[in-house]
Every structure is written in structure tokens, then in C-alpha cells.
């Protein structure tokens, strides 16, 4: 390989077919005299502009029809050299860093010698070592093209905002499960909003046997094994549900607050008493109707109960997770939109409450297709306010435009799977920790199960890896009509 051009932070490197450089590979452009080296990543592979190639191709099709047939007697065997030159490629590379005295700096301001520089591939393990990506809490994401492992440090997810995105069936959920169980393995507390019921069986291996996570996965299904007694609810949590999930107007909310406090003081905070109080409320008809309809929505959700024995205490699960590590999987699979919002409001409110009171140290929140249950104002809350409480969110979506631009700008880590749609790529490329060319060029060509990892976890050296398989019972498979007929 030879250094050909440098324009801004883009390098053009001439490569011959035997050198096998591909998109995503890292190259080291070493200038021994300067004692420095550039670390650049291949973001595109083009044909090198070889003089005479057009003539070469044209003469094989002299009349625009069938190629002219014949025999080449080439005793010196020059033909392989011709094809070797013809197939030379131009690697468009993005400079990621300068290596000087074993130290990495993000500079690309110097120019290595074109004639003297030595260009060679930089293996992923070597790069990870140089970038100090390894840590005490390794999570093996998968294998890279050069058969080495891409290992990130769990602490690089701590206190960070992460996005896992890619088109359908590329392996997003698989990666989020991998991250989730890895964090649980390091005794982290994880809460998952499981939209498709995929995470509930992670305590089982693929063959149905219990695995090491069995006791750490707490699957909560609203209205089934996940119910809440009203007297365990904090007023701000129920108000959050009423205002944000059930859109209760301000005047009615004030009335409800008064009712709630009265019942609480009397020790009569039950569904039955609440319903009766609203029914007998001497107030404006509209207010009473508004409260009555919200009350019925709460009752119909099946999420609330007066039976203390029925109510699963989220606190208990969180406490267990805090002590031994664990995941609280909130199964939202068969839950209606309104009920989903009620449950999410409750869980988030409860988490903030627990974190504020230091009942919990921090929580890793995994939210699949969050736009389906997260209210508008929560987006900014999650990335700013809640982060300070200790909620570190990972959004998982196949519709990148459902996540606000401000979220992308503040995302610390992006795990990007294949996207072919230009619009989707445009959205993702707004992330602050990555350049648009890298996203557009590499993500478009990613095979399924291959993930481009960007951001803090890889010290801003974008890396492609095939996500490793997990021996977990994953559920969540798409139900097929023709599955058994083949």
C-alpha cells in the first residue's frame, strides 16, 4: 500500500488486490523519520484511476456486442501483472488519530512522507491496546474481520447514553440482550421495557435449561404478576400517570390531588374508596367526569389492586438486583398503548424515587422502540435530568427518526447495524461522536449481525464486529404463517 493523497482528514491510499483492505479496516501510516504515524480507517474502496484502463476494457468489446474471442500467447506471463494493476484500488480513509511515542492524539495536522511512509494494516487487538479500550469489566461484543475479539469495558456504558439502531432483523435486540446480561453479570441493576416479550426468558439457555442468569431475571407482566397497590404509590407517581399518560387537565388534577391526600390521611386509599369518592364528589360536572373516566382507565388497566398480596413490589426486585445484580424485565407485549404509558410512568417515577432516596445506586435502562410509550417531555428528561439521578438509558429502535436529534447529539455510544435507507443514515449521522461519511459509507454495507460500534466504548475508533451468539432463550421470534409448511 502507498500513500497517495491527503485532503483535510481524508487519506487516499493506493492498494493492490492481494492486500485485501476493506471498509472498516484500520491502517497505520508510519513515517519513521518523523517518528509519528497516522491511524486511519478505510471508509470507502474505489477503483484506482489507472491510465489506459478504459482502452483496455474497450478493446475487449470492439463492436459493442460480444467480446472478441481469441487466444493470448503470453510467454512471459505479463497478463497477471496487467490485471493486478487494473484491479488496484484506492482506499478512502478517515484519519482517526496520530500515534507518537505510543500516545494517541486526535490530530491530523501533519503530513507524512508520501515516498517514505510505510502503510500497513493495524489489527483490532493492537488498536484496542493503543486506545486503552480494554478494562477491568470486559464485554465481548463479537469477532472482528481479522478474527480477533472486540471487547469493550462495561464501565464505558456507565453514566452514558447509548443507542442501538439498524433496520429490521439485523440483530439489534440480540446485541441489547448481550449488553444487558453482561451488565447483570457485573452485578448491575438493569430495567428493560420489553415491548415484544423477548427478554423474559433470558434466564434460560436455548435448550430450555436454567442458566446463570436465572435468578437475576425478574420478568414483570403488568396486570398479571405486576400489580401495584394504591397505598404503595407516591402521589407524584400517580399524578405523573394521570397528567402524562391519561392527560388529566390541570383543574381536575388539583381536585384529584386533594382527594388522594384526604384518603391517604384517613388510611382509606383503595380503588374502591377512590371510586366512591369521585362518584360522590360535589364539584363541577366536567371535573367529576374527567376524574371518573381516568379512574376507570386505571381500574381497567388491571395494573392497580387493593390486594397487598397481589401486588409485586418493584422495590423488592430492585433491592435484589441491587444486591446481586439483576434485570427487571417489564413485559409490555400484550399491553394497550394507554396501559403501556401508565406502566412506564409508574416504573420511571418509581426509579427516580428510589434513586433520589439512594435506595439504588444507578440503573441501566433498556428501552425498545421508546417512542411507543415514552411521552414527549421524557426524552430530554432521560438524557439530562434522569442521567444525573443515575438512569443510564440504551435506546433500541429500527426507526432512527423516532429518536430526537438532541438525543443523537448527546449519545455517548452508538451501536449501528445495517441501514440502506438514505434518510435513516442521515438521521444517525447527526450523532456528535461520529462523522457522517463513516456512518453513510460503512453502515450501508454492514452484513446482518454485524455492528458498527461508535463512541466512547471504542474511544472514538469506529469498529465493525459480528455480534457473538448467546446461549439464551430469546423468544420474540416473528410468528410465521408458512413456518411449518416448509
Amino acid at each position, binding site marked *: 500500500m502507498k500513500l497517495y493523497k491527503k485532503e483535510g482528514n481524508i487519506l487516499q491510499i493506493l492498494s493492490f488486490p492481494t492486500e485485501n483492505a476493506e471498509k472498516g479496516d484500520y491502517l497505520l501510516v508510519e513515517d519513521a523519520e518523523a517518528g509519528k504515524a497516522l491511524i486511519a480507517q478505510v471508509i470507502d474502496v474505489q477503483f484506482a484511476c*489507472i*491510465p*489506459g*484502463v478504459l*482502452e*483496455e476494457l474497450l*478493446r475487449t468489446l*470492439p*463492436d459493442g456486442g460480444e467480446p*472478441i*474471442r*481469441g*487466444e*493470448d*500467447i*503470453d*510467454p*512471459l506471463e*505479463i497478463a497477471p*501483472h*496487467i490485471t*493486478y*494493476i*487494473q484491479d488496484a484500488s484506492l482506499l478512502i480513509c478517515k484519519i482517526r488519530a496520530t500515534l507518537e511515542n505510543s500516545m494517541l492524539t486526535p490530530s491530523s495536522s501533519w503530513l507524512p512522507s508520501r515516498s517514505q511512509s510505510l502503510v500497513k494494516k493495524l489489527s483490532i487487538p493492537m488498536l484496542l491496546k493503543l486506545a486503552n479500550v480494554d478494562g477491568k469489566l470486559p464485554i465481548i461484543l463479537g469477532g472482528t474481520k481479522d478474527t480477533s475479539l472486540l471487547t469493550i469495558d462495561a464501565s464505558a456504558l456507565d453514566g452514558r447514553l447509548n443507542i442501538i439502531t439498524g433496520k429490521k432483523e439485523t440483530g439489534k435486540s440480540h446485541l441489547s440482550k448481550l449488553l444487558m446480561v453482561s451488565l447483570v453479570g457485573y452485578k448491575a441493576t438493569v430495567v428493560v421495557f420489553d415491548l415484544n416479550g423477548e427478554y423474559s426468558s433470558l434466564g434460560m439457555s436455548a435448550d430450555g435449561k436454567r442458566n446463570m442468569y436465572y435468578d437475576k431475571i425478574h420478568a414483570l407482566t403488568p396486570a398479571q404478576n405486576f400489580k401495584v397497590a394504591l397505598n404503595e404509590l407516591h402521589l407524584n407517581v400517580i399524578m405523573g400517570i394521570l397528567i402524562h399518560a391519561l392527560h388529566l387537565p390541570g383543574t381536575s388534577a388539583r381536585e384529584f390531588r386533594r382527594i388522594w391526600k384526604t384518603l391517604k390521611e384517613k388510611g382509606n386509599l383503595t380503588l374502591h374508596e377512590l371510586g366512591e369518592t369521585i362518584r360522590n364528589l360535589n364539584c363541577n360536572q366536567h371535573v367529576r367526569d374527567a376524574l371518573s373516566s381516568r379512574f376507570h382507565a386505571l381500574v381497567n388497566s388491571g395494573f392497580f389492586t387493593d390486594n397487598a398480596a397481589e401486588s409485586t413490589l418493584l422495590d423488592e426486585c430492585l433491592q435484589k438486583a441491587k444486591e446481586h445484580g439483576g434485570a427487571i424485565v417489564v413485559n409490555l407485549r400484550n399491553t394497550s398503548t394507554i396501559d403501556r404509558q401508565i406502566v412506564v410512568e409508574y416504573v420511571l417515577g418509581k426509579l427516580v424515587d428510589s434513586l433520589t432516596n439512594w435506595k439504588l445506586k444507578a440503573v441501566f435502562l433498556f428501552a425498545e422502540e421508546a417512542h411507543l410509550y415514552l411521552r414527549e417531555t421524557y426524552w430530554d428528561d432521560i438524557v439530562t435530568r434522569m442521567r444525573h439521578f443515575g438512569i443510564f438509558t440504551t435506546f433500541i429502535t429500527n426507526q432512527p427518526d423516532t429518536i430526537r436529534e438532541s438525543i443523537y447529539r448527546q449519545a455517548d455510544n452508538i451501536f449501528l447495524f445495517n441501514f440502506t435507507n438514505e434518510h435513516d443514515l442521515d438521521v444517525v449521522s447527526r450523532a456528535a461522536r461520529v462523522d457522517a461519511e463513516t456512518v453513510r459509507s460503512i453502515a450501508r454495507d454492514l452484513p446482518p449481525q454485524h455492528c458498527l460500534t461508535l463512541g466512547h466504548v471504542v474511544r472514538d475508533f469506529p469498529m465493525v464486529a459480528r455480534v457473538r451468539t448467546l446461549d439464551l432463550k430469546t423468544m420474540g421470534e416473528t410468528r410465521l404463517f408458512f413456518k411449518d409448511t416448509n
Partner: protein
Amino acid sequence: MNLVIEQYTITTTPKYNFPQPTTDTILPQRFLELSLHSLRQVHNQAFQVNQQTFQQLSSLEQNPANLQLKRTPIPLKPDYHETIIAAVDTSTIKIGETSQGIIIAIRGATIWKQNRNYRYTRLGPFIFHITEDNKKEVYNTLETAYFHTSYSSSHQVTPNLMQMPTRLSSLLERWLQAMLSRTVTNGLILFDGSLTSGTIDTPVQRMKEILNIARRNGNTVLAFSKMTNLRVNGYLITDLLPEQEPPYLLETTGLQFKPPTTLLGDVYVARLNKANYAFRLDIDREIPLQDRMRALEKLIGNDLYTQSYPETLRLAHILCTFTANEVLAMQHFITRKHGIQIVNRPDMHRLLFGPFGKGEGYA
């Protein structure tokens, strides 16, 4: 060190045995041997890249004062009777310089058209390192290998180093012409250039022999010149075109050269289609007049024409010409296989005159 050379074989085509296994194939083998031998001499040396091409210029044509061009065109009518058309061309290129000489490449191509399909055989490239010391040996070895006469015995002056590429290329071209003459029967053989002989690289006897063999096999040799210096009343003969619907021929008379230069063909101006181009055409003088016209009519009826030039000959030229890509590949080959390092010697014109120096090729 013994050099094992793979036996050069030319496969036969079932249609008209082209070329036959019995054909004398010693020339390419000698080309290969000498090519490798000459490159071994330059092993691990440095060389200066150069992409100067050598045009195979026809020997300087004298312009006889008594040359006349008959103004009455001979009309031609396409004869679609299936006829084999074959053509040959060679090319050479200088690919670099060493401290002792030059590195050149030579390639030849034969094309034949049958059943509306073009087929080709391309021979080479052969790469030679030619020095003042080995130029005689290289040329004589090749000449003896095929023509059974050595350079020293033919009383010619020693070729200058810079003439060697065209001389070696001509040698390969004559051999390919002879091969076609032997292997094609009842066809038309197209040469690039003229049928002028007695020049330094085309001895009369050699060209006569090629034409004789062709005739014996029922072939007609037609030689097309892309450029000519022949003038009548100061005008190029190819510019004096009458108002006549092509295709047609214009006949010349009175063309004679001073010995030893000899014309083995009669010279015509051929305009083969409506494109406003005409070419000098030499037709073997021993072919009866009627057969010449019939041959030309078969050519028109069987070949395609781009700007009045036969496609078969055009393809022969295209296929043997070296592209820049191939030059790079050959430089890569000699660097890899023979350890010759490429060095950049400064272009003195550029160095001295800066932007006013257009490069050595423009000297």
C-alpha cells in the same frame, strides 16, 4: 544457470487450421529466450521509466516526379461471397532506460474474420533489454532463427540502439505475415503499411517470399497505409478524390523508387465507404488485375468499415497496441521478476526550462 523454457504451442482451430502445429514456431521461442536472457543481464539494476512509443514509420518514401494518379475511378461492387479475411500488426514501446541501454516491449496480433466473427491470436508482449553490446546478437539470433540469414551477412549497417525497437517489431511482423500466408487459404491478407521492400528491415527477398507463399495458397495480399507521403502535383494522393459514389479505387502509374528500394505491389488510392477518407493501398503486383478487383470487392462485402478502413486491420492494430496500464504492468513485472528498480531521472527540459520545457518527447 539453465533456463527451462516452456515449449511454445499454438492451438489449432478446426475451421482452417490457424496456425498449424507444423508451422515453424521457432521465432516466438527465440523471442522468449532472448527476452528472458536480455532481462537477466539487467538484473538488480535501476531503470528510468519512459513511455515513449515508437511509431512503426514506413521507410521514408521518395516522391518520384513521374507519379501519376488516374482520375477515372474504378468502381467496386461488394461481393458477399464468404471469404476469410486476416490481418496482422505489431507494435513496440520503450518502457524504460538503464545505464547500458533501453528496455522495450514488442507484441504482435493476427485477426481473422470468418462467419461474421472476429478471432484473434495475440503474441507477446516480449520484453527486451537492448544494449550496445547485445543489440547485434539479439537481432541476428532472431533473424537467423527464422530467415536463416544473420544480420552480419546481409551487409547492412548496424542499427542504432533507438532503431532496435522498430527493427525487432518488424521482424515479428514479417514472421506473422509469413505465418498467415502459409496458413490461410483462398483468403484476403491485410498488411499494415505498404509492399515497398528493399528497406533496412524489409529485404526484397523476404517480402517476395511472403507474397509467393500467400499466392500459392490462393490468398491476395492487400497492404493499407494509414499515412502516405506520395504526392501528385504537390497534393497527397489520398486528398485527390473525385466526385464519385464510393467504394472505388484510383490507380497510380509511374511510381518507381531508386534501388535497392523495390515496389512489390501496385499502388492505388482506396475509398471504401462514404466517410471522406481514402488510403494508399498496395496490391501484390503478381496478382492478375481482375483478381485484384475481385479481392477488393470481397473485402468490401465481408468486412466492416470504420472511416473507410477495414475493421480486421483496425482490430489487429488495437489489440497489439500497448495501453498505459500494460506499460505499468510490464514495469511491475520487471521490477518484481528481475529486481530492476525504477528511478526517476530528471527531465532536463523540465529542469532547465521549467514550465516552458514540454518534456523530452517535444525536443
